[in-house]
């Protein structure tokens, strides 16, 4: 076989270099098939096996009946995460998993600040509004508002 012949791998595997083309091709196929099979096994093994996973279950008992919810009044959302503790948790209880399905749209507001042709591609609506008393404060860009 000439140097640069694509079946040099087969030669390295220990078979004589003077095989016919068909036998060489068969050996190459077996070698490559074997490599692929090994890779497949390794992939399957890694999918089914997660050495860094820790199985567990969060406790459901109440640890603290009156947790510190920061200095934001109950009905207000004074910061991005509601209060300076950033808990994103509202203590209000009127809306529950049982009645949330009965919510209806109260109003809809469109700011009008929409993406323009010369804006950068990543122009997005990501605003979390603040609520202070009876006023909502939000910043744009924004393409729609869903209460």
């Amino acid at each position: 076989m000439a140097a640069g012949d694509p079946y040099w791998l087969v030669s390295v595997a220990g078979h004589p270099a003077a095989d016919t083309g068909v036998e060489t091709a068969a050996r190459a196929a077996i070698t490559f098939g074997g490599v692929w099979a090994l890779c497949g096994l390794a992939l399957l093994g890694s999918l089914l096996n997660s050495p860094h996973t820790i199985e567990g279950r969060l406790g459901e008992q109440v640890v603290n009946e009156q947790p510190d919810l920061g200095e934001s009044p109950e009905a207000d959302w004074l910061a991005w995460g509601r209060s300076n503790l950033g808990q994103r948790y509202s203590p209000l209880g009127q809306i529950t998993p049982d009645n949330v399905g009965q919510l209806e749209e109260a109003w809809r507001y469109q700011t009008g600040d929409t993406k323009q042709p010369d804006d950068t591609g990543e122009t997005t609506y990501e605003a979390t509004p603040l609520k202070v008393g009876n006023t909502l404060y939000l910043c744009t860009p924004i393409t729609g508002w869903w209460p």
Partner: protein
Amino acid sequence: MHPHNWLVALNADTGQERWVYKAGVGPNSQRQHQTCRGVSYLPPEGGVEGAPEVQNIGRPAEDQPPVSCDAHLYLPTADARLLALDPETGARCEGFAQQGELDLMHNMPYTQSGFYYSTSPRWWPTGW
């Protein structure tokens, strides 16, 4: 031109606009993000319960002259400014930085437009 970074004050019950402040930020394709994740609120000295009623301002809030503020709203802009506004009227707060505007590029070594700006609300560790 359609500038971005508006701060909108709405009636929470009806969705009606109370005032809108337009920060006049033009488009810039060099920015990776064109967004605003929220504003920040500093309650008045006497506590948020004593905050005055938010007014209905019929004209652009940015046209108003700067005022003395008790409570503050802080708006980050995509052109690297931080604006302080009066939550009651949307007017700039004269006591904050340069008549309500803080230039976040001040003393920055690289001032290429679009390379630094803020999209997220400020956080106050004390003062509540």
